[in-house]
């Protein structure tokens, strides 16, 4: 097992907290309690909390405050410390041959796709703000490849690779980027708003933090379906991906609170790439160790090396498993790095070339390749075949997008309202959506 991710100092405090509120406790009130129709372990009820909070508050007081040196500790220092603990190579491979190839293929798809995006952008095929994911593939692949189709993923503007990992076809993503009508959002969303109902990708959000409540809502639906609608097998999990900058935002904290309070089946995945455009995480955050913020809200906080897809996958298995079993949320901080600038418009002058070189040497794709060769999980030829297949796939996606039509004017007004009567009643007494010009996109609304 990847011992580093679960080192005791990070976990135990939060586990003791959680054990006082475990789901297995017998109902505290008899079934005939006048104000309760069925006994439920739902923790939102104050009647339950009043009994459990004294013990939880004492355990909070008993918890040792982790010692903090007065100087700001560079996250890279923490990483070095963890790396030295984990230089023992594992005797049993963590993955099978098939799994390894699947992970490799997904990461290469992410990388090639993003590289192609850069090319297309500079050739004037796509415009606006495009944020590329190069270097962070291990996080997306490590987490999303463990999900079922019904599980939900919520992302930020750096969402192309999350979409691809979740199963949205490369053609649909590329068309969306080109603004074509065959795109996954009919060309109406763009780079920062990838959605897919079929694959349960709930977006694609341009403002940081605004996707986290949406993810919390999706997790709430999962719990609602199980407990109110009595769909006993509904164990859908939601993953919320966001960055280090978001962890200073109110919505992050508010949702950590609500998710832990109601034990929602959600995993908060922080893609800490140390930079929020040009703002270093250390300059923006009083306590840069984001994983610590989990236990403050009563959920486990885990730090993992986000450049190593196997470590991420192990942590993800545990966190997703927890959520599926109804044990509540987890905060996972993945230390990762983006090889390119914040967006294609970012000159990326602030970051130290030495730092970039350091992380480039930890490229997740090369690391996985090395692991698979060392453990005889794949041959050179197999991996080269995957590389070729992905190249062709991405080329095909570009061709498809190129040949796809641009949205017609008729598309302009179609999706503003789910019920187009929302445009109201015109002076002639008819609903505006009944106006023949409405479908042409030229109606006055």
């Amino acid at each position, binding site marked *: 097992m990847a011992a580093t991710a679960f080192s005791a100092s990070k976990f135990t405090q939060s586990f003791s907290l959680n054990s006082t509120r475990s789901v297995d406790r017998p109902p505290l009130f008899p079934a005939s309690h006048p104000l309760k*129709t069925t006994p439920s372990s739902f923790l939102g009820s104050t009647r339950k909390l009043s009994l459990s909070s004294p013990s939880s508050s004492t355990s909070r007081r008993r918890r040792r405050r982790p010692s903090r040196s007065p100087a700001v500790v560079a996250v890279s220092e923490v990483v070095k410390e963890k790396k030295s603990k984990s230089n023992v190579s594992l005797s049993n491979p963590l993955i099978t041959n098939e799994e390894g190839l699947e992970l490799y293929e997904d990461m290469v798809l992410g990388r090639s796709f993003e590289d192609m995006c850069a090319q297309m952008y500079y050739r004037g095929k796509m415009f606006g703000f495009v944020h590329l994911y190069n270097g962070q593939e291990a996080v997306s692949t490590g987490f999303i490849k463990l999900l079922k189709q019904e599980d939900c993923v919520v992302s930020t503007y750096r969402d192309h690779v999350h979409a691809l990992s979740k199963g949205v076809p490369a053609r649909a993503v590329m068309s969306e980027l080109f603004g074509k009508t065959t795109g996954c959002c009919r060309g109406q969303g763009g780079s920062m708003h990838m*959605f897919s*109902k079929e694959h349960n990708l709930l977006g694609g959000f341009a403002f940081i933090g*605004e996707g986290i409540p949406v993810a919390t809502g999706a997790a709430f*639906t999962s719990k*609602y379906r199980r407990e109110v609608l009595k769909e006993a097998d509904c164990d859908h999990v939601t993953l919320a991906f966001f960055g280090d900058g978001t962890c200073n935002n109110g919505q992050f904290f*508010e949702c950590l609170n609500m998710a832990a309070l109601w034990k929602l089946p959600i995993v908060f995945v922080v893609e800490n790439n140390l930079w929020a455009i040009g703002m270093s995480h250390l300059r923006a955050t009083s306590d840069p160790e984001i994983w610590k913020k989990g236990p403050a809200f009563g959920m486990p906080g885990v730090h993992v090396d986000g450049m190593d897809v196997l470590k991420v996958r192990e942590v993800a298995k545990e966190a997703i498993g927890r959520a599926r079993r109804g044990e509540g949320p987890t905060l996972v901080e993945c230390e990762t790095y983006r090889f390119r600038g914040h967006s294609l418009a970012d000159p990326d002058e602030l970051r130290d070339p030495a730092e970039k070189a350091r992380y480039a040497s930890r490229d997740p794709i090369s690391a996985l390749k090395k692991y698979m060769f060392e453990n005889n999980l794949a041959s050179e030829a197999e991996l080269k075949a995957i590389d070729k297949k992905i190249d062709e796939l991405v080329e095909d996606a570009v061709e498809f997008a190129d040949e796809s039509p641009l949205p017609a004017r008729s598309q302009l007004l179609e999706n503003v309202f789910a*019920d187009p009567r929302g445009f109201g009643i015109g002076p002639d*007494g008819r609903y505006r959506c009944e106006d023949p010009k409405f479908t042409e996109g030229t109606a006055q609304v």
Partner: protein
Amino acid sequence: MAAIVQGIGSTAAPCASSNKFLLSSLGSSLLEKKRNFFVVRSDGKCYTGLNQQQRRAQNVVTNAVATKEEKASAAVGSKPGHELLLFEALREGLEEEMDRDPCVCVMGEDVGHYGGSYKVTKGLAEKYGDLRVLDTPIAENSFTGMGIGAAMTGLRPIVEGMNMGFLLLAFNQISNNCGMLHYTSGGQFKIPIVIRGPGGVGRQLGAEHSQRLESYFQSIPGIQMVACSTAYNAKGLMKAAIRSDNPVILFEHVLLYNLKERIPDEEYVLNLEEAEMVRPGEHVTILTYSRMRYHVMQAAKTLVNNGYDPEVIDIRSLKPFDLYTIGNSVKKTHRVLIVEECMRTGGIGASLTAAINENFHDHLDAPIVCLSSQDVPTPYAGTLEEWTLVQPAQIVSAVEQLCL
């Protein structure tokens, strides 16, 4: 069109006297199967067509609710109806919808055990459980976003803002996600959420608890806004908003919650996009909504005594405007007075003025007069507060000016 015909101070058989108006305004609407319509029977009884093709015999409430203090008189006709207060009507609508569809849920601060700060959700948590009537922590932006995420994944949440002003904190979610997600997802996800809460100027609640958010939200594409003003339309609009697949913001008013009225026993759902004819008239069209309706009706009493015949329309749908009802009225009276509680700058009245000018300019005999609240943070002192709002006396003199 669905309309409540109300005569001021009338008691018996007001329907008969307004037959003429009803028949003339039916026009092409009889042929429109999709919309609510009013049919007058030969015995003078009126009934309204409800949603889509359904038509039920129903007695129209014909009492005049002129001011807050007046009690509703008994409904004309054989069906009894039942009397209740506006907040109870909201709760009834909510409860009926929650019974009808298990995906309907409520979330907000103090909606559960406390029963809602204005008791709109009283008793619901006991009936439906803590998860369906969810008490949230004080985090408007996040729980509104949570409601949106739940709506995207299949639930039909109703988010309560304890006071509408608190929804300023949720503006990010309401604007970006609520309004826009259906579009940016290419129509893949719908957001059937209802955001409701009390707003408006109360009794010396202070500036921050006396806000009118309808003006701030009206530009957001993709949302609908409605304002209820009577127990009857409160229940009907609540039900319509819940059933709608669009995100709807339902504006209630702090001072209207205790209005008593008799409402039908049968189920009814009103149309979100339609305005309500409160009092038909000939001389001037007065457009209003929410609490100002009562100031207008009070002024109307005086005006009628002075020989004027104002037509009062409660626009109800703040976004989009029902330009058909409004337009027909303008074409008849040629004079428009807008009375609203919104701020002067950029308020609903301002938008309505622009819309009427654009569409019905040729029918106007005089410039549109818009009476709104002063662009002043609502003061605590009672006298000052009164002066920031439009009072009936101002309405009377504005009409007199207009009709010179």
